[in-house]
């Protein structure tokens, strides 16, 4: 039984995207309140990609990105990785810290905490939505942050996926403020068997 991800139907993908949208809505509200500015978040795309092509989604394997990684505990153990291009990460940090745009050119430990907190909020909001739809209690671990080449950061989750198959489920997330937007990518990587648990709980198991 390889690549259970490839066997997803349109209906199942729609369900996962819809949960993503609800989760993004929750996270946007939380973020807006923190920085006191209106932020919208949408999930324009959900894609199933061959592992080798995943780094291209975020600008190629040697593009510099920030990644926040969390483990998910509960009946459907999973991993969550939230990736931002470097400039988007700096943009968000400036916004969160109330600084002028373009101020940040490298991250201090306070900035790193801020980024991890964003990852935390996003993951929490997404998991809330997922828990709501599935009645499964899913809890995130504390976040870990890395700022490095996209391929290197992605390898962490691609290796986990690689043990099961050759494809990844990618949920694209877009933040927009009144003036401009930043793009992020949110990866939900269910452990072996967890995807079936989630789909069964939503009620869209084939």
């Amino acid at each position: 039984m390889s690549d259970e991800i490839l066997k997803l139907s349109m209906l199942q993908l729609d369900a996962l995207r819809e949960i993503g949208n609800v989760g993004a809505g929750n996270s946007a509200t939380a973020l807006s309140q923190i920085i006191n500015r209106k932020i919208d978040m949408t999930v324009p795309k959900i894609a199933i990609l061959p592992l080798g092509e995943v780094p291209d989604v975020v600008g190629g394997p040697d593009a510099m990105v920030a990644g926040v990684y969390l483990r998910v505990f509960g009946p459907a153990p999973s991993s969550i990785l939230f990736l931002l291009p470097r400039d988007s990460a700096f943009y968000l940090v400036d916004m969160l810290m109330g600084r002028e745009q373009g101020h940040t050119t490298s991250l201090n430990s306070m900035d790193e905490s801020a980024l991890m907190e964003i990852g935390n909020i996003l993951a929490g909001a997404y998991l809330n939505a997922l828990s709501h739809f599935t009645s499964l209690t899913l809890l995130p671990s504390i976040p870990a942050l890395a700022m490095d080449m996209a391929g290197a950061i992605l390898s962490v989750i691609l290796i986990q996926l690689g043990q099961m198959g050759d494809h990844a489920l990618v949920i694209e997330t877009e933040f927009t403020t009144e003036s401009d937007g930043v793009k992020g990518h949110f990866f939900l990587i269910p452990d072996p068997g967890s995807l079936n648990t989630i789909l069964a709980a939503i009620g869209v198991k084939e």
Partner: protein
Amino acid sequence: MSELIKVGMADYKVGSNPSSLISYGLGSCVGIALYDTAAKIGGLAHIMLPDSTQARSAENPAKFANTALPLMLDEMIKLGAAKNRILAKIAGGAQMFTFANATDVMRVGERNTEAVRILLKKMDIKLIADDTGGNYGRTVVLHLDTGIYLIKTIAKGEKEL
């Protein structure tokens, strides 16, 4: 004509002087460079996992050290390399994220590196240089004119093996 041959994740490529083989953004993966100094023929494998027999899905042999290396070696020999002249250099096997209670899942870089070392010994290929571990990504280039294995990082600069 010198050519830069890209090696993707879970892939391997072979080539000869004056080309170079490059693989971008290695994290926990390991980049295994094999080189025959006399024939100036080399190969670069970007492996993700140590062992195909422990995986649920093993359709792509280039993903695993134990299946990628013999295939790459065969292709090098077809190009004119001699097995007894081939030497190995390895890089990668980092742990990108650090948790207080790192599980086995997180230590996959370390396990990859260890498995590659054992495998090279088993295949009777001498490992002459390495740059493994740490918590940062690496881009690697194997120059087939000299056999130099160049390691590029964002935080730690460049290094030649």
